[in-house]
């Protein structure tokens, strides 16, 4: 008896009698199926399309197709003044508008080389960290939905709603704020804002524990994420990963610490990385845990900022804003730690125009997503969903 492989049509067991070949048994031939996941699929978080080659439920190859949400961000920036770019940055990562504005503002300020009032810096950090919590709440909540748990999602959105309310109070908008301007802020925060933020911090602390018990410690949740989609640290660095994704692989890299900006050096917070006790380093669960821990750190940062913030007396949030922004010729790259990783802006100025000659955004989601092909090889379809969820993409930033 002997086995022959007939070019992908399944193996055939044969035996030879004198010179003729007798077929004993034929395996069923299996074919690979092309499965288009998205752009209208519940778990691709927007309009991502993954073209998967599947063998049964196992994915042999998954290729992300992008561009369904492309809005020519970079070209738009070349046609407007420097301050007018700020609203466009909101629309990059629309779940963390404040952080995107922050990154753009510090980049242009670096180019202009101007000094910012201290209170402005504190308010910027407070709203950015609030927005980071809101963004992580969406990430964790939708990750629950991806794995079939609906209730944590609504708990997350209930708490996120309070943050959005606070930010709306400060800026007038719920998601697309246009609040952090180049050289300052649109407005000072309302009178009782800091008190309310403090109340929120006290309210939210126990809620993170509740969320942890409902989702993170859930046996089924752990089973679905533990050891799935493992990304070794060296490969993650080679791919250019950043943010919670890179920290999930065990690399202690946080721009707030490693390339400090604003007042972050004065603040006391940890950069959480998984220690391999609760999870396999680099798997989906690690990335989820890093996000959960980061919310606690953000709460700490907010508390410290509220304690240290200079008083509002004689404060003008627009005092440092230049009348006309016309940087001298040159180029600059500024970056900030966004909820999803490093958001960087490369801006080139010719010294004559009030518009940037070139404004390129280095998107964290786009870079993180590039590893999709590696991560998804040989996984089951439900695991692919778990992996996409753990990458936590926002298509607004992927496509720009």
């Amino acid at each position, binding site marked *: 008896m002997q086995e022959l492989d007939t070019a992908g049509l399944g193996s055939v067991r044969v035996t030879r009698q004198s010179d003729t070949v007798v077929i004993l048994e034929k395996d069923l031939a299996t074919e690979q199926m092309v499965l288009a996941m998205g752009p209208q699929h519940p778990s691709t978080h927007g309009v991502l399309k993954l073209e998967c080659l599947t063998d049964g439920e196992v994915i042999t190859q998954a290729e992300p197709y992008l561009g369904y949400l492309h809005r020519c961000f970079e070209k738009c920036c070349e046609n407007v003044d420097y301050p007018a770019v700020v609203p466009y940055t909101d629309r990059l990562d629309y779940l963390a508008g404040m952080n995107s504005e922050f990154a753009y503002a510090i980049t242009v300020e670096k180019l202009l080389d101007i000094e910012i009032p201290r209170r402005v810096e504190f308010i910027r950090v407070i709203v950015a960290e609030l927005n980071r919590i809101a963004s992580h709440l969406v990430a964790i909540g939708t990750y629950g939905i991806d794995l079939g748990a609906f*209730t944590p999602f609504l708990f997350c959105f209930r708490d996120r709603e309070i943050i959005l309310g606070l930010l709306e109070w400060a800026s007038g908008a719920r998601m697309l704020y246009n609040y952090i301007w180049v050289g300052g802020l649109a407005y000072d925060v309302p009178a009782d804002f800091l008190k309310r933020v403090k109340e929120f911090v006290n309210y939210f602390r126990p809620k993170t524990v509740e969320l942890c018990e409902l989702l993170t410690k859930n046996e089924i949740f752990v089973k679905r994420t533990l050891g799935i989609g493992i990304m070794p640290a060296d490969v993650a660095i080679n791919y250019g990963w950043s943010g919670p994704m890179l920290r999930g692989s065990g690399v202690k890299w946080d721009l707030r610490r490693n390339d400090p900006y604003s007042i972050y050096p004065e603040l006391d917070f940890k950069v959480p990385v998984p220690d391999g006790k609760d999870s396999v380093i680099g798997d989906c669960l690690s990335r989820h845990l890093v996000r959960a821990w980061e919310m606690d750190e953000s709460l700490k940062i907010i508390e410290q900022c509220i304690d240290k913030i200079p008083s509002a007396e004689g404060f003008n949030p627009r005092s440092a804003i230049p009348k006309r922004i016309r940087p001298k010729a040159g180029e600059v790259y500024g970056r900030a730690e966004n909820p999803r990783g490093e958001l960087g802006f490369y801006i080139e100025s010719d010294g004559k125009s009030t518009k940037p000659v070139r404004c390129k955004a280095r998107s964290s989601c786009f870079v993180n997503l590039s590893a999709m092909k590696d991560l998804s090889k040989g996984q089951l379809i439900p695991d692919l969903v778990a992996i996409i969820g753990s990458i936590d993409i926002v298509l607004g930033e992927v496509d720009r």
Partner: protein
Amino acid sequence: MSTMALSQFSIPFLMGNSLNAWSDALAGFYLFGLPLGLVILAAIPLVFIALYSLTYGVYGERKISAFMQDRLGPMEVGKWGILQTIADILKLLQKEDIVPASADKFLFVVGPGILFVGSFLAFAVLPFSSAFIGANLNVGLFFAIGIVAIEVVGILAAGWGSNNKWSLYGAVRSVAQIVSYEIPAAIALLCGAMMAGTLDMQKITMLQSGAYGFAHFFLFQSPIAWLPFLIYFIASLAEVNRAPFDIPEAESELVAGYFTEYTGMKFAVIFLAEYGSMFMVSAIISIVFLGGWNSPLPNLGGFALNDWTNGPVWGAFWIITKGFFFIFVQMWLRWTLPRLRVDQLMYLCWKVLTPFAFISFVLTAIWEVYRP
């Protein structure tokens, strides 16, 4: 005293207290030589499924999930949104009945029908009260276990006929799941049948009557009955595709599984079948382990609670209450737990539930033989 008088009054009013009095009377009812009674007999469970799905199934689930999730749920249509489900049904009725161009039309149309028939047929052997059962088969339990398998055909027809890759995935997963989970479910129910010594649903229930109410239920009659009880409950969740075993319709993976392409009333029929199955498994677990239409209240000296709360009408109340309780647990689990993965589901079935079902089977047999 007054309650006692009421129950004595109600007995002649409700055509006697003998077993299956109502259903026998209905079966013998002819009008112009036509067996109209049989039609009514069959229509009663149908009306029940429709009514309960409308009220408790859809509206109740939305309100319960809303309560668990810090929301209000439907509030606009009628007071507290009571009429929301009616509005939804009216909307579904008006929807265009779309059959995809590339679908296998016959299978696509016939799928939801088979699915519904599968879950509806099992209602024939559910004793809704001591005086009412659709068909008093002497192999009722066997029939109820077996007939669920018809649903598999409907699901496969719906999934294959849709000619959609997601539907096919859903259908294949569903078939694998239901066929696998029938084994621990059937073995667990056999433990109950072994304790009763019969497969007749009415007899199983009658063997659990007694003056001490719940103490006579099979769950409390044997020290190991909790094991088949738990096994059947878990397996029944998988059989009716409820969370955490809802992988055939996993909305985040397979969009909506085997009914992705369905619209309008066909979609509503699939939904109705799901709610029908939910009640069916809940009723079966309460009949086999929790005494069916028997009152759980014990007689306490002069307070003959058990006697006062037994009878044909009370029986219907108790079995429906018990069924609704288990449906509530199903909803509770659905809104709490994430979903298992396909291979984990099969692992649970073949490597955990099935061996434990066999163990409980052997232990029950030993208990039944050497019972003190």
